[in-house]
């Protein structure tokens, strides 16, 4: 157990280091000059470039730059925002991250129970009607690109159906845009959240439910399920105690991995809905050539993902008696 955790933590640091190196070198090693990109690409003058170069410390050696950069990142010194005058990268990213986290949390709350349920049902009814319906659903509607479902939700559900009498009388709000103020509270934001969250839910649904289904089918074939059934305990108990317990354990890891998915999906969804999150900030940053901001956003994302994976592995290890051997 301890051995496993130690190994896992070492992996975490190693992976973190490598990821940050990747992000760092994306901006340094690629053909071309980052200072020129930031200064405005082809139109920039040599003076502007030289100024930015000095400002970013680009004249130091590469390893030196990397160490400085990583140290600054870990210390919360993420520099000034170029894309939005007067803002500071750290504050901006934190504010937007909170918004994205709210959106992600709502999406996870909706999608995880739903996709686990769908996966379990499909698995228990392998190749029967419920399974076929669920698999058609997850292969088709649910796996469309986020912008297609997002636009559908905005233009059809919200703009067309949301104006209908039924929706009006229910009093439920259908925002065509989720462009709320970035510093709104959770309560204020909630009405704007749920439609993008539905879009994000769909992103995860196919992935989690399919893996859950596979896990359930695999467990059902195990010898110990037969042993349990032949003990004469009710089938319900066999499913709960023996099948689901073992089948759902790995979904902890699956959910952690799906966070990386979710983040990709959120970039598109926030853009479509105009939601003030980290994803729309990233697009703005890249459009406005603010590479430092983009870099910081990438680092934040990677940090979140790696921590989620680490937490999932640790939780898995704690819950699974077999890991001790690893």
């Amino acid at each position: 157990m301890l051995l496993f955790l130690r190994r896992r933590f070492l992996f975490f640091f190693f992976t973190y280091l490598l990821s940050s190196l990747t992000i760092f070198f994306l901006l340094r090693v690629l053909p071309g000059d980052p200072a020129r990109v930031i200064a405005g690409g082809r139109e920039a003058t040599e003076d502007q470039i030289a100024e930015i170069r000095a400002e970013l410390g680009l004249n130091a050696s590469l390893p030196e730059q990397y160490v400085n950069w990583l140290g600054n990142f870990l210390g919360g010194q993420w520099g000034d925002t170029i894309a939005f005058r007067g803002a500071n990268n750290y504050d901006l990213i934190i504010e937007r991250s909170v918004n994205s986290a709210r959106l992600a949390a709502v999406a996870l709350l909706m999608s995880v129970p739903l996709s686990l349920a769908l996966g379990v049902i499909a698995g228990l009814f392998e190749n029967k009607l419920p399974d076929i319906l669920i698999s058609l659903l997850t292969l088709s509607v649910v796996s469309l690109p986020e912008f297609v479902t997002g636009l559908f939700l905005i233009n059809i559900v919200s703009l067309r159906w949301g104006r209908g009498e039924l929706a009006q009388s229910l009093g439920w709000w259908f925002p065509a845009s989720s462009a709320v103020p970035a510093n709104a509270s959770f309560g204020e934001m909630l009405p704007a959240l749920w439609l993008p969250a539905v879009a994000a839910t769909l992103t995860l649904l196919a992935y989690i439910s399919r893996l859950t289904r596979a896990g359930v089918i695999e467990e059902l074939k195990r010898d110990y399920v037969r042993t349990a059934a032949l003990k004469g305990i009710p089938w319900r108990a066999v499913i709960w105690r023996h099948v689901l317990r073992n089948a759902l354990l790995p979904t902890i890891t699956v959910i952690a991995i799906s966070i990386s998915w979710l983040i990709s999906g959120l970039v598109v969804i926030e853009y479509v809905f105009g939601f003030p999150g980290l994803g729309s900030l990233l697009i703005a940053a890249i459009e406005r050539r603010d590479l430092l901001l983009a870099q910081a956003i990438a680092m934040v994302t990677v940090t979140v993902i790696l921590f989620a994976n680490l937490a999932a592995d640790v939780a898995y290890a704690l819950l699974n008696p077999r890991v001790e051997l690893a």
Partner: protein
Amino acid sequence: MAITTRSLLDVERLTISYEVNKRWIPAVRDFHLRLRPGQIVGLVGESGSGKSTIALALMRYLSGNGRVESGGLLRFAGEDLLRKSDAEMRRLWAKRVKFVPQNAGAALNPSIKIGPQVAEALKAADAIDGDAAYDTMMRVFHDVRLADPERVAERYPHELSGGMQQRVTIAMALISNPELLIMDEPTTGLDVTTEAAILDLVRGLIAERGTGVIYISHNLGVIAQLCERVVVLYAGEIMEEAPVLDLFQAPRHPYTLGLISSVPKPGQSKRAAPLQSIAGNPPALTRLPGGCVFAERCAWAIDICRDKRPPLEQLADKRAVRCHRWEELSQPHPPTPSPRHQMPAIEIAGRGTTKPIRRPAPDAKSATEQAKSPSIAMGGDLEGGWQADETLLRADNLNKAFPVPRSLRELLARTAPSPIRAVDGVDLHLRAGRTLGLVGESGSGKTTLARLIIGLEERSGGKLELLGMDVRNHVRDRSQDVLSKIQMVFQNPQNSLNPYLSVRQAIRRPLIKLRRFSPAEADAEALALLARVNLRPEYADRYPDELSGGEKQRVAIARAFASDPDLIICDEPVSALDVSVQSAVLNLLAALQDEHGSAYLFISHNLSVVGYLADTIAVMYLGQLVEVGEARELFQAPYHPYSEALVSAIPVADPRHSTARILLSDDLPSAQNLPSGCRFHTRCPRKIGEICEREEPPWRPGDRGHLIRCHIPLEELTSLQSGSNPLEKAD
């Protein structure tokens, strides 16, 4: 008789089908069985005979694509099981009918501790919970002789050894005092020593409780040792049913006869005669022949056998047989079998055409050695007397230690963990043209030793010489010359051939690579090799998935012989094969050795098989050799106490044979934490005292180069063991 005795289980005309590609295939046809309380009936058959299907059908637990055809009868204690609802079946499973599966490791839920898992069964059976349940559980754990039951209950399944896991499943089945117990190969996959212990346990527990048992096995020895009546299955049909003594003494069905005589008995040797074997393979269930299912492989088959399916005839002496010619065959002078089917003949026909058969003993080069010394000698002080002149392979102090990653505590304390010493100081001399058998339980290091010699594993220490040349450590560093001289036949025929290469390609490659044949030469030689392993030329263009297990192994043998090696390492080459196919492969190996003069290092957990094929046997325990001697000496006193236990544990396929078994505990000490002194002292039934724990035992030489590594002098061992020689009784 049948009317007066209360029967526990009555099965009549049971036909079970499986759905494959939308067609229902009858996997078991017309099955009959009657079981009285307290009786143990054995179901014996090879793979595909339908025995596990029957087990599940009797439990009414067929998988979704299986069904019992209507018209059959399945009655348990007077009740018709086929009409029971699921809820009623569940009540029966809870209390009265229990199942013990094969592979206990997989049959226990890995994420629940043993205690709660067993308690679950108890709760379903008797609705008892809490302390009363715990006490009952402890009592049953004690009954199945689980050491330290309280701690076992606190463990997870993966923390127990295979033998202990199987004891747990037996405990789980017995905890409700069932009336009927169905055991599906419960000892398959366990070591002989563990198997012997479990069989003893089952025998004792059944006698106490009066449970009716259906015991399923492919192993005739196990059946002979345990069962009262035996049902022989073949391709889904009963071939013969009889009381165990009658069956083994006077089998009525040609299949039974073939099966019994294809198992080597302990002490039987290739020098005496080739093994009997059954030609061919079982029919595919999708294409069953119209007549007798066995006709195609039967040496006595005549026209009627191929045209008309024989009925299951009830004989006077409580026997039944499904054969048209059983009466003729049971006469004092039975008709002679058709020559095509005399397996030994076909084996010899395949090999004897080009070269005369050479038996090891009269062979010029080995005759001199024969008189002098065994092919194996140990290092150290014994070296001088044991120089063999035709040494093919010589290993000195071979070692293999697998490193273990450090734990956190060791990391902090800056100590290194002790490595797993899989092979620890083994000396071997192998002579040309001879067979060295290597036996030992799983975990003894025998496979690692073989892999060190072939170079698939890098040795941590020691020297290896082939014909006086130094042999490099890893196979990648070895010269073509060395590579072509040592080849290997692997255990699992399923995996030893590349599924995407045809038989021809598999055999050609070593010819081109190691013998530098031109493609045309290689093609011709490949066909010649196929002929020598008794496969027809059309097999050249088949792919592995079109071959049976035995055929695959023949191709693997042909491939190993392609480079004309001096040494072939055979790692359990027949253990994955069915009994009737096993003997043909053993005969083939013996015949090819005569022809090529190659030496074998033959590894097996099956002592009878090793005894049959080997000239010399080495017994391995926890990375060391403990006894070395000529093959027949392994089965005679004096033994090393470990060999003695191994020999006594052999399930002999003869119900008259009985042994005072020397039972060993299930637990093989960890190779990471080896016992001090004599490695065997923790389990040794003949331990003499502190010296065994303190000092490494010396090699004690006996007659004709027989060596035993034990503190007990040989004379004393002989006198201790002479009373319990299992083989003398069998003879």
